[in-house]
């Protein structure tokens, strides 16, 4: 039965690797590939991911194959078969682990921080488009500052969803908020940096756009923001990834990356709808 174990481990390891290598579910046409990267910082992340995949994949296969091989060879031996020690003994293995894993981890960690820094350690450009996103049970809303370039203040007590006052603006008393543009979809121009301010209305939520390689939690009480630049026109899903209640599975919006002309037209249209 030891040999059966070896065979099964070997087969499972191989089968497990197939969807990783082919990026699909065993020829069914269902793709597991990363969605196309439409961001400027994403390729560093993708590279890091594939480097890690190679290292993790090789470690996985090596360990499973060794397990299978040793169980095949050393199970159900004769009662008086000689007990042998692995060459190098424990000391060799400790050194191997320290050297191999140590350098691997160090490399991944040091190289990986560049991709992280690109997203988080660089401030938004001063001419980035300012948009505010508000996450609440169970929808995203977005706000543009309008012609005056300033956001009006938020008044939680004035929130009135029935009258589409999602952000709790007070245009009667607050001049800055009069020209704010509130929408249900996040439209941005291509190749222009966007500075997304993130406000949570009630509980924790998260902003996730796979193609943008961006994920960031909304934390009630904290002023968080992310910045990114989209490089391809199209409609992409924004989904909530932080458990926020019963509607969590359905909480989404669309990121609409437009050409500059289309974006200007869209803004004009939205401004007139306010």
């Amino acid at each position: 039965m030891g040999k059966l174990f070896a065979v099964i481990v070997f087969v499972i390891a191989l089968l497990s690797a197939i969807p990783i290598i082919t990026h699909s579910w065993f020829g069914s046409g269902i793709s597991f590939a990363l969605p196309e990267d439409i961001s400027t910082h994403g390729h560093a992340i993708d590279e890091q991911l594939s480097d890690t995949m190679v290292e993790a994949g090789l470690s996985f296969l090596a360990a499973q194959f060794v397990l299978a091989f040793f169980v095949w060879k050393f199970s159900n031996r004769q009662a008086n078969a000689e007990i042998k020690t692995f060459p190098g003994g424990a000391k060799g293995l400790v050194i191997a682990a320290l050297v191999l894993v140590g350098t691997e981890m160090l490399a991944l960690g040091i190289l990986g921080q560049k991709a992280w820094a690109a997203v988080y350690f660089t401030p938004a450009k001063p001419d980035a488009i300012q948009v505010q996103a508000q996450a609440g049970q169970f929808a995203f809303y977005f706000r543009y500052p309008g012609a005056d370039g300033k956001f009006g203040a938020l008044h939680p007590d004035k929130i009135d969803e029935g009258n589409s006052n999602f952000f709790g603006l007070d245009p009667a008393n607050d001049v800055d908020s009069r020209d704010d543009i509130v929408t249900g979809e996040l439209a941005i121009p291509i190749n222009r940096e966007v500075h997304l301010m993130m406000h949570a209305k009630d509980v924790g939520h998260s902003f996730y756009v796979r193609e943008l390689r961006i994920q960031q939690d909304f934390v009630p009480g904290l002023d968080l923001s992310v910045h990114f630049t989209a490089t391809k026109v199209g409609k992409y899903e924004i989904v909530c990834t932080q458990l926020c209640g019963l509607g969590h599975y359905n909480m989404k919006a669309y990121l609409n990356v437009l050409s500059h002309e289309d974006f200007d037209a869209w803004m004009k249209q939205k401004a007139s709808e306010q």
Partner: protein
Amino acid sequence: MSDGAVQAVPTTADVVHHHQPPQGFIRKYVFSLDHKVIGKQYYALALVAVFTGMVLSWLMRIHLVWPNWPIPGLGLLSKAGAPGGVMTPEYYLSLLTMHGTLMVFFVLTNAPFAAFGNYFLPIQIGAEDMAFPRFNMMSFWTTFLAFCILIAAFFVGDGPPIAGWTSYAPLSAVGADAGPGQGFGQTLWGLSIFVFCIASLLGSLNFIATTLDLRTKGMTLSRMPICTWAWFITSCIALLAFAVLLPACLLLILDRVAGTSFFIPAGLVISDRLQPHSGGSPLLWQHLFWFFGHPEVYIAILPAMGIVSHILINSMRRPLLSHRVIIYCMMGIGFLSYMVWGHHMFVSGMNPFSSLMFSFPTLVITIPATIMTLIWLGSLYGSRLRITAASLFALGFVSMFVSGGVSGFFLAQPSIDIYLHATYFVVGHFHMVMGVAAIFGVFAGTYFWFPKMTGHMMNESLGKLHFWLTFIGTYCIFMPFHYLGLAGNVRRYSAFVDDFLVPLIPVHRFITIAALCTGAAQLIFLYNLIHSRFRGAPAPDNPWECTSLEWIMPSPPPFDNFGGKHVVVYHDPYQYGVKSSTGDYLMQNSPEQVEA
């Protein structure tokens, strides 16, 4: 009061404390002070919890792929949660919360640690019982109380909480406004975990004091079996971790019922109501929770590593390449486990520099885990491996630990976590290490120690069948989770309606079928357990030819373990591959001298 009778200085040897056998049903089987009975009670509780948790997972998986199919009986459990047997989104989240809570606390902390540890730690060090038998009894019954409080959440007005086992604030802290289940159900959750922390602290206290103080003559720390070391290190970790979760739960309960604002900031509008709290920090909850939560997962895996090491050595008929290295690695993992909690919070809004700071120890913790894996593999080389149900599960553990561990490489890096956070990749990772590997440790321990605990042998053929079905089944369930995660499949969704998720549903269907089949296979284990308890072949004292002290006792052991005799230990616990009067092994208490 007579002061004339001056007594001699009481020494420890003079204090007379006769150890009488327990009398009466209640003392023997209910409020027992015997660590062996308490160990079995923990095991039974874990068994109930794991089957409950497993059924919950079936319900969840069925709902994900056949959402409109009415599940028979579910409507009876909750009219509001599943009208006509069709699950609502909030009920899905309730089941998800209860599944996680039951499994992490009542199964993974109980079975490998409290159950086997309570039963075998005193025996393996040659002691008569734990250091504080009354605390031991209290710790079990307090755990049981926590379990009852948790289960009660199923039956209260609004149902069980929906905030996940991680119970993030403010969702978990504001109260009923946040959604169904967030009223009394969530408070019961907080109370249950609070009580569980107390129980766990009492248990850890016992383990530590027993290991340090009650070792028998000749049983130095370095002669303790690896599983004893694992239980000892785990109890040290648990002591400090649960001591942090305890006040965290208290603060959460206060936010919910007393109007405080530890975790709730100002200006929240939930269900059209402006919440009356202000100034609190949701991130504070996350820090406190994960400061406990990360050591908790090592509490779940370390005992399994110890049990598997012990069983592998016995099955291979040779010691591991190095006893000391394994123990130092376990200590290293325990120590490092306190430095990595922020890796659950990379995109949480905490300082991104902190994220990098947490990433490095997370990567470093790979090193002791790798060393242990290499030692297990390297020790297989040249061994005389015996294949039994127990050793199959131990070998399966190694395979599962590798699989679960390598996905950690990805999640340890913040830049990659941007994409993989909160996807099924994470769910696959922790299920493989905790839900499978740690459980394999429990299975291995069960098949190995059942003869000693009950005096009957389990059915080996059924055990091996159970292994094959479970090994293949769990790979079929949890490997695909990683692929789904790479595609960006978000977790904790009660339905897959997004454009990019709908095409993945066939994969989920495969997983659900695998889960139901693997679940059914566990009934073989349950049957084997119960049938063998009453009808299994009588077990000899030492069916596996094992060297540690539990095997010198009759099966099952008498109430006072070593029959009042004083065990003396002469060797380390892994004298295998020698030529002795007993065969190729030497018991720890045998004064015999052999050549290597």
